């Protein structure tokens, strides 16, 4: 025990004095999420706003006289073209945005209580355009409908036989689980892995590359304990990175102005002692598993470069199952509880939604503990090989 603590203490001091580790494991996750949150949402908001208030040019063909009055809007400019072909060319050249073309018999048909046709030509790449035009036309349509109801002397309900309402039975926690439940585990699983990556290279391969391992092997302390201490130090950095990204997420949700109030209350009630404990119940063995996995992979490497080429493919093994959990229909079942990483992601989703079943959770934790023990034993076996330890 004494050796393990000595090694953990030394390795943590050593690692945390390294600016690269500090930035990638602690600073980045805590600022990354708020930045993404604020940056991305602000950006989309701005773009949408811009699209909606953008000045557009439209032209009519065969429009009834009263139509232009419906399009009185400071951001809409009505222009005239003598023939349709010219107008179409203008759209192609982007000097016109839309052509609203009324069928020749439009007015006759409308008057005869039939259906009149309107064709709107525009580029679908202008995303907000059609909605802006159709909103105006809907008002025109509503006016005609009103006239017809009066003429026919019927009640408005007569042409609206059914009214469909929906009631959302999902609790706000379940909604939250749907919204952030998928993203949350994805973020912290990847962050935990990345947090372990650099220290693993540094504490395992670095020791070999620098040649410090030789002297370390001449001390009377148990080699297993030395390795275990190193792996636990790696796991702690990974765990710290995962915790930092969770904190970053919580902080940004709270600072973010557009989060609905019921979401905030839901978040506050989710972040309970139970939630934190259940999350750590998975995160701790997960980070030890990552530390063991990475140690096993880099232990034979002679240099940082070589170690990186071994460890990079591993990130796919981690990202893929974490991303799978975001697919609709992916749920924690008796078969998915056994799939490492995917089970963590799915269980987190259910913990957030408070729909997790205890037996499922326990199996997830148990499988993670077994995996982490396995990874420790495999890397110890590798560590025992002379050819792996010495260059």
């Amino acid at each position, binding site marked *: 025990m004494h050796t393990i603590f000595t090694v953990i203490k030394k390795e943590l001091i050593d690692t945390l004095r390294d600016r690269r580790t500090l930035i990638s494991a602690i600073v980045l996750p805590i600022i990354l999420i708020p930045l993404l949150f604020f940056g991305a949402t602000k950006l989309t908001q701005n773009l949408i706003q811009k699209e909606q208030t953008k000045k557009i040019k439209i032209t009519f063909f065969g429009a009834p006289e009263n139509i232009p009055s419906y399009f009185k809007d400071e951001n809409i400019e009505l222009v005239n073209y003598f023939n349709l072909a010219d107008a179409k060319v203008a759209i192609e050249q982007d000097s016109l945005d839309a052509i609203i073309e009324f069928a020749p018999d439009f007015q006759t048909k409308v008057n005869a209580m039939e259906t009149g046709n309107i064709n709107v030509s525009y580029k679908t790449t202008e995303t907000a355009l059609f909605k802006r035009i159709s909103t105006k036309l809907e008002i025109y349509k509503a006016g005609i409908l009103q006239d017809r109801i009066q003429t026919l002397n019927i009640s408005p309900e007569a042409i609206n036989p059914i009214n469909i309402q929906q009631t959302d039975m999902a609790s706000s926690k379940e909604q939250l689980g749907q919204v952030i439940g998928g993203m949350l585990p994805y973020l912290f699983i990847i962050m935990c892995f990345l947090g372990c990556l650099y220290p693993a290279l540094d504490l395992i391969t670095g020791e070999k590359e620098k040649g410090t391992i030789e002297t370390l092997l001449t001390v009377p302390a148990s080699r297993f304990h030395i390795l275990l201490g190193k792996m636990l130090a790696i796991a702690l950095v990974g765990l710290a990175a995962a915790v930092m990204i969770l904190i970053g997420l919580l902080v940004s949700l709270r600072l973010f102005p557009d989060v609905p109030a019921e979401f905030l209350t839901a978040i506050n009630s989710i972040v309970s002692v139970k939630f934190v404990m259940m999350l750590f119940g998975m995160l701790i063995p997960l980070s030890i598993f990552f530390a063991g996995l990475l140690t096993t992979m880099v232990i034979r490497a002679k240099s940082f470069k070589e170690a990186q080429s071994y460890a990079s493919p591993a990130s796919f093994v981690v990202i893929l199952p974490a991303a799978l959990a975001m697919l609709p229909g992916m749920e924690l079942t008796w078969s998915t509880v056994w799939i490492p990483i995917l089970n963590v992601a799915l269980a987190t989703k259910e913990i957030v939604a408070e729909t997790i079943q205890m037996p499922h959770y326990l199996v997830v934790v148990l499988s993670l503990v077994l995996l982490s023990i396995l990874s420790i034993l495999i890397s110890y076996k590798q560590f025992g090989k002379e050819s792996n330890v*010495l260059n």
Partner: protein
Amino acid sequence: MIEVSDVVKQYQLNKQQKKELQTTANSINAVNKVSFTCTPGKVFSLLGPNGAGKTTTLRMIATILKPSSGNIQVNGHSVANAPNDVRRSIGFLTGSTNLYDRLTPGEIVKYFADLYGMDATTFKQRKEVLFTRLGIHEFAKKRIGQMSTGMKQKVSIARSMIHNPSVVIFDEPTSGLDVITANSIIELIRQCKQEQKTVIFSSHIMSEVDLLSDELAIISKGNLIFNDTMQNFRQQAAGQSLTEAFINLVNAN
């Protein structure tokens, strides 16, 4: 006391290695049936050209590598059966060792003392003695990464001597060092001899060996080709310079 008897270190060769070494043999003996004894209060030198098996031999004594066959006893403990007893009594220093760049001398020395399981009072006394003797106090708060090679070497010495080992193993301790820094190592070896420690050091520089040695072993291609006192080697050299005698001996085998 170090007793090495009939020690062999065999490495299996894979296809590529066979090609590189242009051999059809499946294995190679990096150290081949080597025997010698180092006694307390004397400096034992292991001399040989590059790749002769010096480092492998010293690593086996230091329990970093396991001998394929043969036996090594350090202060009566076998490296195969009681490696931890051996480790407690040895100090190991190599010229190629680096230290942890982001730690200070104090932290490094403490780390090793903890791994040796030293108690706090003994550690404090021992650290004080070593830091004063080596003049580490003036840069004790500095991180290794900011130090000169000479300073680093002093810290390396303090680290390998912190538990006051009775047997010290130096693997090419002066390689890559300038004369001034190398001198601190030579001083250390003399000091160890005075303190009646068992000292073994490897080198490929005859002048250094001549300066320090009481006993000499010459190793070439894994085989021991000379093992006697330094005095006898000087006599055998008979008129040639010691370096010449060494070269002739290696070429003759």
